[in-house]
């Protein structure tokens, strides 16, 4: 039997704040599992028998098992799983649904946030730096834009999960999640292209000849690193090159 339980604003708020710490106990065995239990817990207090009751303890145990997803998109799972528990869905069904959520919430979040939103915001901030915007302005561009998206995504995910419960898959088919990463990647390409020469110029300072040499080296280095895709990490190669340069500069 399905009983619709209203979730008070205070409980929603508590779940949202806990979502910010969802990876607090992250590990290589249960991954986000404990975090999901931690975030769902305020809603489970509304189960028959209340906090510490049989239903509460069984649900908390179920929700604290292995789980893997993108940390921001895990908000969808937290909302949907809380709704499923409060709706009195069968435990076996909840467990199957929980397992099924991992893949899509991981891949959608990784593509949208780590591979698109974060790099786009990062190059936008570098462009602001390159244009000579002041310290506060650069930080405002980065933190303001990034967190507007970050917090909105977490809030939307929790709300969509709580509203749709086990039918939340329909919310994941929205245009922002499907086409957003592609448009963000295009924006990152354009802004990144503008940002790099400007940022280079800003750090090096005046002097065209040196700028030209560095630009040529960067183009060559960028192509080599892009071709090494997946086989070497550029920042580690950077450590090696900088160590050599420091040794050379000290030995001179």
């Amino acid at each position, binding site marked *: 039997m399905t009983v619709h339980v209203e979730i008070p604003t205070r409980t929603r708020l508590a779940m949202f704040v806990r979502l910010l*710490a969802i990876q*607090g*106990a*992250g*590990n290589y065995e249960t991954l986000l599992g*404990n975090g999901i*239990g931690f975030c769902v*817990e305020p809603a489970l207090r509304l189960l028959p028998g209340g906090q510490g009751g049989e239903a*509460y303890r069984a*649900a*908390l*145990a179920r929700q604290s098992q292995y789980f*893997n997803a993108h*940390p*921001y998109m895990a908000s969808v799972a937290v909302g949907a799983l809380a709704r499923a528990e409060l709706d009195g869905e069968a435990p076996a069904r909840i467990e199957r649904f929980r397992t099924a959520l991992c893949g899509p919430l991981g891949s959608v979040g*990784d593509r949208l946030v*780590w*591979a698109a939103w974060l*790099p786009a915001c*990062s*190059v936008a*901030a*570098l462009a602001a*730096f390159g*244009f000579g915007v002041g310290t506060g302005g650069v930080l405002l561009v*980065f933190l303001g834009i990034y967190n507007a998206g*970050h917090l909105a995504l977490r809030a939307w995910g929790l709300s969509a999960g709580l509203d749709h419960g086990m039918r939340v898959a329909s919310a994941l088919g929205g245009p922002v999640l499907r086409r957003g990463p592609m448009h963000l*990647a*295009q924006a*990152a390409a354009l802004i*990144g*292209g*503008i*940002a*790099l020469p*400007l*940022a280079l*110029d*800003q*750090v090096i*300072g005046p002097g065209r000849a040196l700028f030209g*040499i560095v*630009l040529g*080296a*960067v183009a060559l*280095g*960028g192509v*080599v*690193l892009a071709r*090494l895709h997946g086989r070497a990490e*550029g*920042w580690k190669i*950077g*450590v090696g090159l*900088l160590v050599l*340069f*420091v040794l050379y*500069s*000290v*030995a001179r």
Partner: protein
Amino acid sequence: MTDIAQLLPLALLGAVLGLDVVSFPQAMISRPLVAATAAALLLGDPVRGLLVGATLEMFALETLPFGASRYPEWGSAAVVGGSLFTVHDNTSPGALTVAVLAALVSAWLGGWSMVQLRKLNAQLARKRHDAVAAGSKRVVEGLQVFGLTADLVRGGLLTVVMLALFAPLQSYVLSTWGSDPRVSRAVVVGVAASVAAGAVWKVVHAAPGARWLLLGGVGVGLAIVAMR
């Protein structure tokens, strides 16, 4: 930099920003651009922090923290880099190079320390498995609080250790530095921008038209530089 009054606030900052990387709240205040500037602000010169932060941000563009992958920890590392660059005056020719190198090494070690913390969390979760399986609120919340606290301590300790190690090393290296100041800066930002260019390409290459957008962007950027 070995002064406790200077170290303590930087350690606290490194702890908070190290925590932001994964555990709480992942608002990206741990990105180098922000973290290095914040460290430099504590030392009274945020503009220098922004310079080293922007250079480190180019390296960090390559980091895509997918799932349980292993990646550098930029929060505490950028505090180390921002602090080291700020304590030296603008005329030190190798200051940016050494600060960036110290931050990169710290990020490497920080990434390793995050892996160790995750192993420790797993060990504790295994020990408490029966209590979790019994639905104990106290244990579920306790594991979370332990992980958060340990991560906070990890970031703080890493910052202190790396600053204590690199501050004297930096003084020695800068006192014997033989390269031209502008060439020194050009080398470090050239390496950083190469990493950033490769990273941007890696991220965008699958999007339709990205190649032309990137080239067009570079053209616009160069035109603006030429007009300066």
